């Protein structure tokens, strides 16, 4: 198959290019272009970084070799790595001086599916940080230019709360990541990952015919083989009228699964320290590469990334934010949504 080359732009703040050769199966499983299709932009001229997907020979001569595995020299990192059934080769260069090139080789089809989350999202985070913006592990909805952020680890209800709010007339900015920029939230529209156990009513109702067939087929596949395959659905195909690019950041809800619903106000500083740890946990295995590089170059941009990330959050989140720490049950039910929803409503009427 021919090479597919596509440019992407995140609110003109970070731009990147991905070059790869999609296989006939990758369409079915969701390839890397599907992941970022809402950022496609033909006008991008000089992307901040380029990702080449395919086999390659590393330029790793004259490197330091750590643990016989990680190759590090100034402005350069390479390794071959694996996690469970995924196997990949990863090389990046030019990250210290703004001419960043990345090469990734995915050894099998399963690996192709996790490249975006494992490697590309953290790269985007690194670049956004360089430009003073904060990528956060949070969903966000908005009404009347007031943005409500739901930040959580997996299982905290980022997607569910966002979709629930859209059903009640709010606009949507992202369900997994969003960008905070000087008191504002900017959208980050990644595809919804739909399984049978998290099919929200609004998705079910508005799902296109093609997606529905795909979803039903995968659901059947799961019942027959036990193999769980995600259906990726573009939010633009479901509620295109409920999308906004930007909103003022009004409130943030830190959602932590525990036993029963409990909500308390927290300070901005506390919110930020949770958000930094959240992002670090979400940056595996890339964070490992950052740490390996930092061992040799402790004063580099790569090594100081997390300091910068924290500073940026301090700058980008305004002092007047209303922040809440919300304990939610491990399994959500409607009453949990209603409780959180109630809190948002009171906030609105108070204004």
């Amino acid at each position, binding site marked *: 198959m021919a090479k597919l080359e596509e440019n992407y732009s995140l609110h003109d703040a970070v731009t990147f290019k991905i070059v790869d050769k999609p296989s006939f199966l990758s369409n079915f499983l969701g390839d890397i272009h599907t992941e970022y299709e809402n950022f496609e932009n033909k006008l991008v001229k000089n992307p901040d970084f380029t990702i080449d997907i395919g086999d390659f020979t590393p330029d790793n*001569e*004259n490197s330091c070799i750590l643990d016989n595995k990680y190759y590090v020299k100034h402005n350069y990192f390479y390794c071959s790595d*694996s996690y469970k059934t995924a196997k990949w080769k990863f090389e990046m260069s030019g990250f210290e001086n703004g001419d960043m090139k990345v090469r990734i080789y995915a050894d099998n089809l399963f690996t192709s599916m996790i490249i975006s989350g494992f490697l590309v999202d953290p790269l985007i985070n690194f670049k956004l940080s360089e430009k003073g913006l904060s990528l956060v592990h949070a969903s966000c909805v908005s009404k009347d230019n007031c943005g409500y952020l739901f930040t959580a680890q997996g*299982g905290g209800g980022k997607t569910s709360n966002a979709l629930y709010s859209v059903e009640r007339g709010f606009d949507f900015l992202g369900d997994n990541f969003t960008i905070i920029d000087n008191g504002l939230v900017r959208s980050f529209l990644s595809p919804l990952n739909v399984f049978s156990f998290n099919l929200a009513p609004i998705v079910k109702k508005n799902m296109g015919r093609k997606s529905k067939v795909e979803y039903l087929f995968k659901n059947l596949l799961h019942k027959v083989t036990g193999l769980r395959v995600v259906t990726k659905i573009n939010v633009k195909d479901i509620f295109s009228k409920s999308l906004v690019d930007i909103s003022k950041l009004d409130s943030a809800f830190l959602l932590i699964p525990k036993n029963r619903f409990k909500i308390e106000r927290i300070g901005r500083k506390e919110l930020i*320290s949770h958000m930094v740890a959240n992002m*670090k946990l979400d940056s*595996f295995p890339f964070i490992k590469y950052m740490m390996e590089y*930092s061992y*040799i170059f402790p004063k580099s941009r790569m090594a100081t990334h997390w300091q910068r990330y924290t500073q940026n959050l301090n700058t980008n989140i305004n002092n007047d934010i209303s922040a809440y720490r919300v304990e939610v049950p491990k399994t959500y039910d409607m009453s949990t949504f209603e409780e959180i929803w109630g809190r948002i409503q009171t906030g609105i009427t108070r204004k």
Partner: protein
Amino acid sequence: MKFIKNYNIHDILKFRIIRNKEHNLRDLINLKFSFFNVEELDDLDIILNIGKFTPSNMDCYLVDHKYYIKENYLYCRDSEGKATWDVEISGLKDKTIIINFNGEIKGFQSLMNSDFVAQNLLLRLMEYKFAGKQYYFAHSAGISKGKQAHVFAGRGGTFKTSLCMDFVRRAGFEFLGDDRVILHRDKVLNFPMGLRVFSFMCDNLPNENSWNLAKKGKFAKHLWETRKEKYSTIEISKSAKLKSLLLIAKTNSKTITVREISSKEVVDRLAANNRLEDFVSLGGLGINSGPHLKYMLAYSYIFPDSYIAKSQEESKKIIRDIVENIPIYEVEVPSKYSLSYFNKIHELVKNA
């Protein structure tokens, strides 16, 4: 029937390992910590229980569907590579940390490495406990002569072990440790881990990479014959004064380069050197994503003001005190070990 082993490390840190059964060869020959094995022990810092347990994970926060966390406590069921394990850590802030560990390993490795994951977690928590007592449990090798110690820090593959072997048998140095040593201000305390392996290598191998099937056979026989003894043929130093520190990096170029670096520069790097141990593939089991680091991060996510969340910064303070007034060299070495490499380091150490 319970099998209990007690270990006392220089009266600074005391721990106990309890097993339900003595399940394999590796346990029987008790390689890793045998140097510190003692009969009786109280005031324990860490207890490691190996075997089935029921977790007390009620009223926990759940992070990423997986990590059960409450104040002072973490539980998770984890798997990677050839291993699956249940781990529960409680008393993180107390005098005694209790680790409950139950793991399984698939394939032939289960014969030798069944508690590798537990041992590694134990090392991680020992480091944490040492730091609480103002000691840096360095991932470094150390040798000494006339009570003057030289410490070699470096990632895996920098021939720390081979260097120690040659210092001990060619230059009359005493041994402090080839993987870990304990540092406090200008003092180095020994931590000879797997001493019987090291001792055998000194007597039988040119360097750490010259194992072959015949040598392994000879080693197995030797271990079995000496299983009841605290066996070692080499001179071990209990403690010494820190004289110099070498930060060794392996490169794929052919030359050896040496440069002196500032103590400021080395603090971050020594802290990172320990942290990167979390990513080292354990005993060929294919665990390299850093599960222990994830446990600490998941805990820090819930409790960002806890000592765990700040321990990296705390350990830097301890390291700063250690490296303040000694010469520090960064040494880049080629990827093959040779005597000329040893000679160069020997010269450097003699003149330090």
